[in-house]
């Protein structure tokens, strides 16, 4: 192989910082969100040498591996950890980066991919390779960890049973939540990095309050007798959505988005994650919502929950399941490594 001296390997002769961005288990929206900085992206480029960003520049993993430890000044890591390869990259980038930022909801708290923690690897494979209506797989093939080819053996990373957040794998310096993070917040973070005004390591770059703080709706005391699904009502545009019985996650979701969803008459779904000091975003929201149910009769409470919140975990933990206290559904049967990708014949 052609040994190359990638830009990041050498000390920055021009005094510019070195920036890396990586994409693990996520949709890619975070990468696009960076571009939503619009012309400010040029400022980023002016301030940093981009040493590793697979969707933007042609730099290889081996280039990163070749760098000195701590050679990268800032690494924006988006996506959660679902495979051994992603975990490897997390460890690698952690080692190579001075500052590792969990970028976006997936890296911070698992996000939508994290909801897969309600199933396991086998169920995911069964759905993806067999059950979805759009799947055409008459031979019932599944990905194999090892595939012999004339040139040798090809390996696929191990697909984990659970989705993990970045922090569950490696120490993280900063968190930039959001699905995706709003451009303004990204710019805040970049500015903080450039001006060396970063908060204490381990903190979330963002507001201290919740979405309600940015929401213009009128709020009063909350007493809820009935929860309504969004398709059941046309919400009043002035009044707090939760007070109208619509499960709005804004009360327990970190501010930063500008209350975009409530502004268009749609409840907050919680993508910005919990506030500082809240350990379990879903449980916190659940506790708050349960507290304002207007009944002291257990049976009526059950009825109110069943009728209005048919999927409590999906409703309360939409973005935060992987980061929650329990992290995932109980794993009924633990497979051994050899059973990993069963049910398939040679191609």
């Amino acid at each position, binding site marked *: 192989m052609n040994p190359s001296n990638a830009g990041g390997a050498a000390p920055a002769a021009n005094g510019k910082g070195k920036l890396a961005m990586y994409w693990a288990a996520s949709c890619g929206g975070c990468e696009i969100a960076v571009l939503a900085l619009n012309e400010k992206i040029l400022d980023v480029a002016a301030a940093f040498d981009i040493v590793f960003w697979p969707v933007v520049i042609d730099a290889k993993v081996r280039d990163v591996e*070749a760098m000195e430890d701590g050679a990268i000044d800032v690494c924006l890591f988006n996506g959660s950890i679902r495979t*051994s390869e992603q975990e490897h990259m997390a*460890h690698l980038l952690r080692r190579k980066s001075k500052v590792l930022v969990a970028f976006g909801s997936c890296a911070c708290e698992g996000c939508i991919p994290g909801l897969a923690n309600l199933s396991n690897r086998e169920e995911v494979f069964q759905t993806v390779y067999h059950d979805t209506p759009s799947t055409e797989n008459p031979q019932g093939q599944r990905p194999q960890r090892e595939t012999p080819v004339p040139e040798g053996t090809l390996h696929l*990373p191990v697909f984990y049973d659970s989705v993990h957040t970045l922090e569950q794998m490696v120490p993280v310096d900063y968190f930039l939540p959001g699905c995706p993070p709003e451009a303004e917040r990204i710019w805040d973070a970049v500015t903080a990095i450039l001006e060396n005004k970063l908060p204490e390591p381990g903190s979330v770059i963002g507001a201290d309050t919740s979405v309600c703080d940015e929401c213009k709706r009128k709020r009063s005391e909350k007493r809820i007798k009935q929860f309504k699904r969004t398709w059941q009502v046309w919400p009043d545009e002035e009044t707090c959505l939760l007070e109208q019985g619509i499960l709005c996650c804004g009360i327990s979701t970190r501010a930063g988005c500008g209350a975009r969803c409530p502004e268009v008459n749609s409840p907050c779904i919680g993508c910005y994650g919990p506030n500082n000091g809240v350990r379990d975003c879903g449980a916190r929201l659940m*506790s708050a919502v349960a507290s304002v149910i207007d*009944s002291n009769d257990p049976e009526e409470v059950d009825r109110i929950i069943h009728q209005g919140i048919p999927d409590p975990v999906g409703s309360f933990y939409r973005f935060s399941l992987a980061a929650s206290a*329990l992290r995932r559904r109980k794993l009924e049967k633990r497979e051994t*490594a050899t059973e990993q990708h069963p049910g398939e014949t040679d191609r």
Partner: protein
Amino acid sequence: MADTQFEPKLVGFLCRWCSYTGADLAGTSRKEYPPNLTPLRVMCSGRVDPTFVLHALAQGADGVLIAGCHPGDCHYKEGNYKAMRRYRMLLELLDTFGIERDRVRLEWISASEGDLFAETVADLTDKVRQLGPLNWSANWEENGERSEALQAIVLEHERAMEVVR
């Protein structure tokens, strides 16, 4: 050595006025009950955050007891009703997470019900013992294959790529 009986680890959130006093009474009345439950005193069952329960289960507890004053008897008027609402909601979550409802119990135990406290702890211990260890953190450990796979990637990279330092 014969199999030793599984001894569940239980956490009890007890309200300071009724249930903690009830537990005290069980003690001063020399009631016998299993030593598996460790009480944690809060002012009111309404102070019991569902997160505490989830945290306890995730961090090694096999079962949790939340105990407060009887409905209508709450020292803080209605904290126990809030505990009840949160508990009902919590049960729904536990179902989805695959945790048996019997592991998490809400009980109304008044200051005079030392007997009931002892019975409740005995019953909870018994039920959780039958359910077996929860060992929740094992759920995300990805078995031994995880470190093996990581090691394999490192080796493969070393073999396949020339790394220039």
